[in-house]
């Protein structure tokens, strides 16, 4: 049974949504689209959280942080790990994409369905100068969800949030 207390679900959502991603702290779990929903059932806030990658080491940290934020907002809290449908980078909000770019991380090239060919290359714009004259240095960057690039125009090395 879902009981929406006066303002309860909204307040719970707001508390959970404000939690920053532990590895990319410029964006929140809501910006990334990994916070799927928050329900308030009999005064208990239940948050649905989805992993980005199968082995993302931040999954537990994110779940604990969301749970703590809900408790701080005065709720009993529980986390549900949601696998299906799988998260894709298309779920990152427009606001989240802009925050990533300002932070110096190139947001994923839209959309995840368009780069499925085996050796398809994508054009990634430099988050600093906007040039698309960039080159991939490494398929894997500082975290599992990023690749490493360099801008040939302004020489800036940068992370690219991989499209998945």
């Amino acid at each position, binding site marked *: 049974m879902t009981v929406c207390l006066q303002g309860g679900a909204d307040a719970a959502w707001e508390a959970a949504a404000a939690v920053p991603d532990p590895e990319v702290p410029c964006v929140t779990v809501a910006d990334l689209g990994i916070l799927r929903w928050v329900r308030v059932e009999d005064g208990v806030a239940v948050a649905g959280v989805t992993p980005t990658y*199968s*082995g993302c080491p931040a999954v537990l940290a994110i779940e604990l942080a969301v749970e703590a934020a809900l408790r701080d907002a005065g709720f009993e809290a529980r986390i549900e790990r949601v696998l299906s449908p*799988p998260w894709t980078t298309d779920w990152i909000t427009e606001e989240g994409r802009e925050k990533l770019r300002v932070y110096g991380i190139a947001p994923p090239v839209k959309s995840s369905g368009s780069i499925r060919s085996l050796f398809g290359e994508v054009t990634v714009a430099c988050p600093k100068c906007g040039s698309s004259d960039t080159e991939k240095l490494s398929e*894997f960057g500082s975290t599992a969800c990023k690749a490493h690039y360099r801008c040939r125009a302004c020489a800036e090395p940068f992370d690219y949030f991989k499209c998945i």
Partner: protein
Amino acid sequence: MAVWEALLELADDHLVLGHRISEWCGHAPMLEEDLAMPNMGLDLIGTARTLYDHAGKLEGKGRSEDDLAYLRDEREYRNCLLVERPNEDFALTMLRQFYFAAFMRPYWLAALKSTDETVRGVAGKAEKEMAYHIRHAGEWVIRLGDGTEESAARMRDAVEALHIYVDELFDSSDVAREAEAHGILPVRADLRDAWDRTVAEVFAEAFLDQPKAAYPQRGGREGIHNEALGHLLAEMQVVHRAHPGARW
């Protein structure tokens, strides 16, 4: 009834290969690969965790993912022989990764239609990760195969060494067949064409030839393993077994 055991086979493949590739951490030939291999290992281990958790629940004896990973002996492991092969050489490591991913990508794509919700959830994530592994490992197969005399010779040696472990990927054990009959897991034999196409495409660019089939090795699904798996499990399980129930 046997479905949980079929999931165990799949989970064991992922954990053993994930552990194998993690052995390169700190030893890779360059920094980029030192980052790449543990990251790919994480994908595999993450997939294994969800599968173990699900298998344990279906078994219904209260075994957790840790119990299944750390407290089973070599003969109880059901992984295929390919994934337990020692790293030996960077070329062999990349070819092994490429072979496995070239199998798992079409496997997970087919599993998107599984009758089991958790399998569908795992598949949705893993098929994309496997596409990435195919690309990364496949590029190395091409670079080394079409590289120097030395790199090409090593990649040819890797092809010779791993070839006998390929056929086992397409075999379904009795428990797997039961899961396939229920539409829970894809039929392995059906994936041969997709695997052949992916490998042929990369081998053409790498100037590599597929050897003719000879003496395929089998036995992993019955728990008959090479010596290498025992050493891997000893290292992987020792801390957990030395400190039963430890928490921090």
